[in-house]
């Protein structure tokens, strides 16, 4: 599932570099605060384990082909989400730099698709909820299967979105999705079964390794989840937004016969309108008219709407975060006084 540079546009690749870089920085901060050096050595060797384990192939029943362990979920179970994320990111960096497996621009996307989903979504919200801390083999099996499959499917969906957003391929969104999801569903089931097999072996021979990690995902990761969801809604679901006028425009149209107010030709209004035209780099949630013509009218995919959605979501997050930070500081100062 490693993406190549040639399928990505610099905007999409750059955005995911920033997203993955921020997640690496945040995870590193959390781990450094823990100050548990023994796990640092464990992370390094477990990263090497993932590389080595991928050499050991097994036959996939009914297909005649063979596969190998991916390791994302297993790392999250053994190390906790933050350390697993850093370990997986390091594996992907080495694969990119020395094995040409995944491109340099695509590194951010690959880290996001292959490390973020198993470590920060599948492990805390699926595996831990179903099988975490339980000795029951059935729960362990179900949890591993569901988490590995969901993690891989989310990664595959993300690959499709990133590729379609980049606009390099001619494959339509629906067709591409229909190709990717069933393949990764099968791979996810196999990954889940192998992970479960390894966990059962460890539970029998060295159960201390499966003691839940101290670094649980707390409300901050719920914030991360909401951030991802808002980006997806803003970036993708906005393509399918209704082209019909909203309630206010509809009311104005009924009353005045036009969907917008007639412009007032006063100097102040004109100056403000001119300023707005200059400042608004994505007018009406799309690109300015010169680039809009590049859009395929039959496709719902609209890069301008996507960029508007993502920029909008990030702006709201930044504004809310800044206000929260300022209020928090004020409160701390007031408490000190």
């Amino acid at each position, binding site marked *: 599932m*490693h993406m*190549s*540079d*040639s399928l990505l*546009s*610099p905007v999409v690749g*750059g955005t995911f570099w920033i997203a993955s870089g921020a997640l*690496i920085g945040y995870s*590193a*901060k959390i*781990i*450094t605060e823990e100050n548990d*050096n*023994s796990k*640092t*050595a*464990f992370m*390094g*060797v*477990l*990263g*090497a*384990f993932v*590389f*080595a*384990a991928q*050499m*050991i*192939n*097994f*036959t996939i*029943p009914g297909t005649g082909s063979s596969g190998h362990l991916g390791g994302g979920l297993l790392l999250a179970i053994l190390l906790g989400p933050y350390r697993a994320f*850093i*370990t997986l*990111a*390091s*594996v992907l*960096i*080495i694969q990119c*730099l*020395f*094995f*040409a497996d995944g*491109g*340099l*621009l695509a590194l951010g996307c690959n880290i996001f698709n292959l490390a973020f989903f198993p470590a920060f979504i599948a492990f805390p919200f699926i595996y831990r909820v179903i099988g975490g801390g339980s000795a029951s083999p059935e729960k362990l099996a179900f949890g591993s299967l569901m988490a590995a499959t969901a993690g891989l499917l989310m990664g595959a969906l993300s690959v499709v979105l990133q*590729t379609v957003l980049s606009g*390099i*391929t*001619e*494959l*339509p969104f629906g067709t591409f999705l229909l190709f990717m999801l069933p393949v990764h569903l099968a791979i996810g089931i196999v990954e889940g079964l*192998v992970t479960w*097999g*390894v966990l059962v*072996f*460890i539970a029998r*021979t*060295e159960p201390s*390794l499966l003691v839940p990690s101290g670094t649980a995902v707390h409300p901050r990761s719920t914030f991360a989840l909401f951030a991802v969801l808002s980006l997806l809604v803003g970036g993708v679901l906005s393509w399918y937004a209704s082209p019909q006028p909203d309630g206010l425009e509809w009311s104005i149209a009924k009353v005045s016969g036009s969907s917008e107010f007639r412009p007032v030709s006063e100097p102040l209004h004109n100056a403000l309108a001119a300023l707005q035209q200059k400042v608004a780099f994505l007018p009406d949630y799309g690109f300015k008219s010169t680039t809009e013509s590049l859009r395929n009218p039959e496709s719902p995919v609209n890069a301008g709407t996507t960029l508007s959605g993502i920029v909008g979501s990030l702006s709201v997050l930044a504004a809310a975060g800044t206000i929260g930070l300022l209020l928090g500081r004020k409160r701390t100062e007031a408490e000190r006084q």
Partner: protein
Amino acid sequence: MRSRLHSDDSGTARHERATPVSLFLGSDRSALIVTVLFVFSLLSVPKFNLPGVIAFGTFPLFLMFATRLDVNIIVKRLLQISPFVLFMAAGNLVLDRNPVMTISGITFSGGMISGTVIVAKTIISVAGLLTVTLCIPFYRICSALESLHVPDLLVTQLILLERYSSVLHKEAQAMQKARDIRSFGRRGKGLFRTAPLLGSLLLRTTVRAERLYRSMSARGFDGRLASRSPANMSPQEWKTVGLWTLFFLVLRLIF
């Protein structure tokens, strides 16, 4: 640790006779920055502009010859180009059949051009990246990353991973060989028989990690192998980055 890394024999084999890439790309840090700029500039070429993509081949080609790197190493890696990329290129070939140009009576469709651009971009970007990374030892790449404010923890993780992947690789190879000798075809290679084997490798790994941690602690390990404080970019580095940026801009403007 660093001196051992310097002389390691890991799978990430480097060309011994390569001329230091620093002659052309400045410090390791500026080499990494120039490589990132190269990839971004190459990928900003529109999907139907084949000459524009080919023009960027000058960067890896120049470095390969200037550093006297064994081209076979790059070619071997390029032959393993992701099947996913080839699939996407083939998709363009089938889905976009609009004729866009005719040369000597042969008509080329839009899909043929954009599919070729996808493959060409992959080959050129991978060749550029590999040329730079094969010329700079891994520990120096890690130092450069550190000086670019990559978190210490990630740099330490990369150093440990690179060092121990070769050790565990040998261990996994031995296990795989032993199983192949005893399995007679596919027998014993099923999914559920492989899981205990992987579990066993994991247990050996943890034992090794424990030994490693004890020996590192005895030598004063404080959780970081990366310890140099990041310095600001020197004027020479800015000059190198600026010149290459100008070169990439010129390529984008001309083609």
